[in-house]
């Protein structure tokens, strides 16, 4: 018997509609797989009762012939999304015990489309990290193993989502991406991850990190599944003032794999110092695949690429220091104990000292510093000007006729848990070198698995699209998926 949890959304959709499998059976298979995967530490709050109730409703809709694409499809939800009545704490101690009395717009849409919720998924604290090691729940572990059976990171910040999808604990998962937090973990675990154009998906009810950069997106087993799930997540929402009042295309219908007449750019600035030969080779192979699908490959220049990471690490912490000011131990979450003679300032300061982990504290303080009197112009204002230049680089490439851009997704394959423990914080930031430009420019980006490293680990390519050009971008990713025939799965050890 096929393991039902290993199905794609597209296959499960067809089999649910034909009555070949039942919604309850499929959801139970995922709940069982999740329960048996404690070693991965991917699921932080299982929601079997919610999942089964949703599956029962999905079964009725399927029977009545009113079944949207996601009807009966079991999903995992990153802990950053508020789910009504379910522990939602952004993997932070400071939100200990928080049960939101409301539902995020994205999850509302997913449940309305008939999806079932198997549980909340692990992540870096407040989505700040690239290895899932800053989580209060402890790190999620990749289902892939390194040399000598070493435990590997699934990447971050959406590490639990990546591990859960790659290990077949659910059919797909939600992620969020501020600097690469969907695409890097997707690349590390051999799955597909999509960061939509800024404004495509509502941010309402998602714990905010850096509001001008954050976007939610799907993490799935195939490009087709990403197209299906993205459509369900997208659309205008009056509750998010930056949500775009645009119609949502049928992304799945746009998948042809035929790139005749398309022009794909390879940015020369992404050939960074010290890039491993296998990443360079993968990139060239990807370009060859697109050429074979009919595309014209052109070299392009994005001259301000080098400054994207330092600009990002000014802007994102600045926004975070403002967004995270709300965690003060008064309205929700964890409150520190203070002495009889101490006052409100001690309450704030100790609550935040005890509640936030070291990386979150560092970023809040960096953000506070770059926004403080005397430094605002030198750091924050300058970084926002550099951001304008980075966006302009992309605009000029697109104006010159480029339809999409191909780059590596990450500078390496997944690294071992704990191997970055003594590294400088900046070394961890370098994981985002190929992805962060896309957030700064508000563009859509997709990571798609394209090959294996010398040590047998997944490697991904990134396709960057025009603003609102997710459909075309996904078609390019689809061509890579078809040509690479990537089908590697981690050997089950958990």
């Amino acid at each position, binding site marked *: 018997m096929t393991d039902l949890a290993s199905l794609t959304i597209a296959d499960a959709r067809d089999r649910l509609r034909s009555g070949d499998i039942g919604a309850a059976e499929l959801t139970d298979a995922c709940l069982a797989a999740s329960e048996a995967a404690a070693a991965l530490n991917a699921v932080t709050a299982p929601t079997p009762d919610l999942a089964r109730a949703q599956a029962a409703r999905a079964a009725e809709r399927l029977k009545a012939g009113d079944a949207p694409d996601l009807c009966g499809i079991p999903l995992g939800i990153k802990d950053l999304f508020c789910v009504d009545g379910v522990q939602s704490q952004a993997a932070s101690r400071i939100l200990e015990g928080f049960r939101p*009395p409301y539902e995020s717009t994205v999850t509302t849409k997913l449940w309305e489309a008939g999806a079932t919720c198997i549980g909340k998924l692990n992540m870096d604290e407040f989505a700040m990290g690239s290895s899932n090691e800053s989580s209060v729940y402890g790190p999620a572990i990749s289902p892939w193993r390194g040399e000598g059976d070493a435990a590997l990171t699934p990447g971050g910040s959406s590490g639990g989502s990546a591990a859960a999808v790659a290990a077949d604990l659910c059919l797909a998962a939600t992620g969020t991406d501020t600097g690469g937090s969907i695409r890097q973990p997707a690349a590390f675990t051999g799955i597909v991850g999509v960061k939509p154009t800024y404004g495509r998906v509502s941010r309402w009810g998602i714990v905010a990190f850096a509001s001008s950069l954050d976007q939610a997106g799907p993490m799935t087993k195939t490009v087709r599944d990403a197209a299906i799930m993205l459509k369900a997540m997208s659309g205008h929402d009056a509750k998010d003032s930056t949500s775009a009042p645009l119609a949502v295309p049928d992304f799945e219908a746009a998948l042809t794999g035929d790139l005749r007449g398309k022009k794909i750019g390879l940015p020369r600035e992404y050939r960074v110092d010290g890039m491993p030969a296998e990443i360079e080779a993968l990139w060239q192979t990807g370009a060859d695949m697109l050429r074979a699908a009919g595309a014209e490959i052109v070299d392009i220049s994005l001259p301000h690429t080098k400054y994207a*990471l330092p600009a990002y690490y000014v802007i994102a912490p600045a926004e975070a220091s403002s967004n995270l000011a709300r965690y003060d131990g008064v309205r929700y*979450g964890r409150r520190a104990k203070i002495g009889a003679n101490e*006052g409100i300032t001690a309450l704030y*300061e100790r609550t935040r000292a005890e509640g936030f982990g070291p990386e979150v504290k560092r970023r809040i303080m*960096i953000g506070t510093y770059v926004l403080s009197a005397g430094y605002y112009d030198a750091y924050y204002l*300058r970084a926002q000007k*550099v951001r304008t230049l980075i*966006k302009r680089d992309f605009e000029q490439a697109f104006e010159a006729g480029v339809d999409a851009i191909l780059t590596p997704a990450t500078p390496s394959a997944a690294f071992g848990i704990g191997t970055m423990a003594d590294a400088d914080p900046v070394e961890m*930031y370098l994981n985002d070198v190929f992805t962060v430009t896309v957030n700064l420019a508000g563009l859509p980006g997709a990571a798609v698995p394209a090959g294996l490293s010398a040590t047998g680990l997944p490697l991904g390519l990134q396709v960057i699209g025009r603003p609102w050009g997710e459909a075309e971008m996904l078609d390019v990713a689809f061509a890579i998926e078809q040509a690479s025939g990537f089908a590697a799965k981690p050997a089950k050890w958990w």
Partner: protein
Amino acid sequence: MSIDKDTARRVAHLARIEVAETDLEHLAGELSGILGFMEQLREVDVEGIEPMTSVTPMELPWREDVVTDGGNAERVLANAPDARDGFFTVPKVVE
């Protein structure tokens, strides 16, 4: 730009994060390292460049100034670490 111990203490206080006196030196070193990485931004010619205020060209929408939600005091207070008689409670603020 290097951050000294006094600046680290001031930033921590502005951010309302308690840091032990013995940890300030280490914190100052970490923050200096990160700021050093950002120094590269000084190389960029930003003369005449507008700072980005919105990544997609859009006007923020207006809506009617009417009540759209409310009457949820109990649900709002449900997650408070300490709430009494329909209020959040905090230590005494005014002497």
